[in-house]
């Protein structure tokens, strides 16, 4: 996993994946295959929510308070139109879950992408430039670590809604979440990339590239990235699970998605109010789906880490 790649930079990622033992290890682990299957199903269901969902929970005119708090239909006290029951506003729980997982996954993916891009860039810059730039970036990283997503989100959300007066909260909430969750994750990428860059920086090919007039940055990027791809992929997968959970946690503090555009976390937060009163279905179904989704992604991350770690093979 080290020097071979420098001469084979043309090799595509897919090619390398298939060449490695990853595919073999994937087929060997039943747990991983199940996790991948479950994750795939949830991702697809979320993607196709508008097609699959029996109702559109965002179409306010279709909601009726008189249909609120209906239990799941199989309990005999519900309504056949609502398989998993309805929430306090009369929204179909099944449809809301489908739409909600779409939002949760979108927040997760976007914040991981944001963190990865930011972290890789800063790590590369820090490692390559060294000196003062490196020191500044790494000290910022230190302090960053002391401000986890929850604190950042509270501050950013407060600021944004103070600035906008809360207008278009449905749109800003997504951005706030992606930025605050993403900001708390970038350090890991930056540190990984930086250390790899430090190793590469003094290698001859970088000197050579400079001599022939190529921008050293481009060269670095093309050489460093393949080296760190494995760790970055592992971090990203585990972060995805963490991001989805963090979003849910933030909704508890009132800085998650608004209740008119609920994510799974928002639904759990709303359902929390109805736990003692016996309307368990409002919390249980989104909670279970969230747990299964995060579990599947985590298992994939686990497997990926073991599979990409040559020492463990």
């Amino acid at each position, binding site marked *: 996993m080290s020097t071979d790649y420098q001469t084979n930079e043309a090799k595509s990622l897919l090619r390398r994946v298939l060449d490695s033992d990853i595919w073999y290890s994937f087929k060997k682990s039943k747990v991983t295959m199940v996790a991948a299957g479950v994750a795939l199903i949830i991702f697809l269901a979320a993607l196709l929510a508008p097609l699959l969902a029996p109702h559109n929970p965002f179409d306010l*005119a279709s*909601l009726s308070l008189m249909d609120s708090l209906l239990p799941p239909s199989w309990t005999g006290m519900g309504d056949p139109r609502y398989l998993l029951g309805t929430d306090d506003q009369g929204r179909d729980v099944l449809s809301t879950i489908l739409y909600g997982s779409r939002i949760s996954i979108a927040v997760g993916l976007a914040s991981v992408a944001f963190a990865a891009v930011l972290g890789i860039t800063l790590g590369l810059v820090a490692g390559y430039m060294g000196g003062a730039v490196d020191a500044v970036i790494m000290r910022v990283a230190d302090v960053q670590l002391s401000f986890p997503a929850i604190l950042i989100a509270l501050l950013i959300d407060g600021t944004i809604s103070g600035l906008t007066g809360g207008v278009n909260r449905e749109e800003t909430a997504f951005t706030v979440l992606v930025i605050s969750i993403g900001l708390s994750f970038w350090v890991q990428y930056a540190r990984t990339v930086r250390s790899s860059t430090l190793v590469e920086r003094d290698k001859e090919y970088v000197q050579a590239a400079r001599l022939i007039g190529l921008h050293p940055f481009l060269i670095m990027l093309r050489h460093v990235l393949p080296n760190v791809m494995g760790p970055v992929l592992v971090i990203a997968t585990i972060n995805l699970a963490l991001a989805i959970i963090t979003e849910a946690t933030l909704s508890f503090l009132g800085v998650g998605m608004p209740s008119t555009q609920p994510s799974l976390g928002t639904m759990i937060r709303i359902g929390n109010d109805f736990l003692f009163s016996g309307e368990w279905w409002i919390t249980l179904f989104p909670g279970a789906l969230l747990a299964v989704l995060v579990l599947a992604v985590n298992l994939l991350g686990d497997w990926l880490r073991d599979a990409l770690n040559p020492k463990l093979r």
Partner: protein
Amino acid sequence: MNTIKLMLSATALTSVVASAVAAETTFRYGFQGSLGSLDPYSLSETFTLGTLTNVYEGLTRRDENLQIQPGLAESWEIIEPTRWRFNLRQGVKFHNGNDFTAADVVFSANRVRSEGSDLKARIPTDAEFIAVDDHTVDVVLSSANPILHSEWHTWMIVDQEWTVTTDSVQVTTAADTSVTTISQETNGTGPFMIAEHTTGVETNFTANAGWWGWNGKAPNVDRVEFKTIAADATRVAALLSGEMDLVYPVPPQDIGRVESNAATSALVGPELRTIFLGMDQARDVLTYSNVTDANPLQDVRVRQAFYHAIDAVAISARIMRGQATPSALMLAPSLFSGSGAFERLAYDPELSKQLLADAGYPDGFEIQLDCPNDRYVNDEAICQAVAAMMARAGITVNVNAQPKAQFFARVLAAGGYDTSFYLLGWSPSSFDSWNVLTQLHGCRTQNEGTGPFNIGGYCNLKVDELAAQVLVENDAAKRDELIAQAYKMTTDDVAYLPLHQQGLAWGVSEKFSVAQRADNIFRFSLITAAK
């Protein structure tokens, strides 16, 4: 501030000393908010003031039914239209042993109107307090005022000598950098004394055995422990698990659970707070709407359309689970004798569409509804339900739910009334219609004190005229007639869209019974231990 509480050794000790001594009764309760400053003039807020009325007392009190009763003043009379005489209770002592005299009343009257006090409005600025003798105080007014003492149960009397010697004359404000004694300790005349106070966490009270109101009997409970429990679920759990004897508020959906639990029951009652929607009628163009060249809400037909689109009965039944009463007026019916003559406009989405079409909006329009999400019972859920109902009448409502800190900063006068459509709750602090007519319906003018909470900027000069007459009318029947006329105008104008009076819900242990007052003030002296 923390006190050593070695419970184990304490109980061990008492059991050794004497078993003949009757067991102390301790009453534990939890509320969602916390006690800030202990200075009774620092913050005009129901919970802070209400809790402090167990420690300090005013010249008047209010009983379980909110009727004005003698407090530190045994009696009073209006000896001239502009001169009131208060006869003070004799033999009353502050907790530190000082005698309560007329000088304390005069001192308190000056202090409550001094700079930094948040309760200045309790007494007219030009009212003059004169100590006739040690136990008589005259109040001289510049004009007649039949409701002078209506809010005096939360204007508490402090001890002049103690306040002066502890350097606490200046009312504690947030701007103070030095900590004054009166903001952290108390010295009242009331039935309970504060023993320990941990800011924002807990406050413990012990009974004042020498209180005049016990009438020679032993205090009902020896100790009251208050703890802040902010999260709804945790608060309800603390009651159900037997850790607390009283918690409030109990969310409407959990009332059934509290009732079904053998050791607890729910105490529910009407509250005075009216929850309503307000509409911007002042601006010529709405700020938060897709109609950019006019203000549709200035047209009474549009306001009627809004009204007809909302099913307040469904909101009360479903969102509030029956713990609310749909309201036709902007105040609780119990506060106005003529309220029976008013009825809500019917829920009729078809009529709404018709009215909108008549007003020139056959396809409806879009508007933002500003809403707090941590202030009133199920506030955000109410707004969401309203949005769904109005969608059926063709009006697209975007709910903007914010924490109260941000919500109030925008919509109130200080934020420039920055809203087009909003949800608010109001309970008249004087329990009187005049408050509602001036604060919510009075035309906003440059003058201080008129219509400060009239966020929508409704203005009908005839209503203002009637309110002015109501203020000085001493005859109750005539006064009610004037009030009824004013309400007729405001409801015909659809000045507001009243929704309901939210209910009070307390969860109480079977071990005690308590008195619930409609203003949500909890009086310790009315606790009784079950058998």
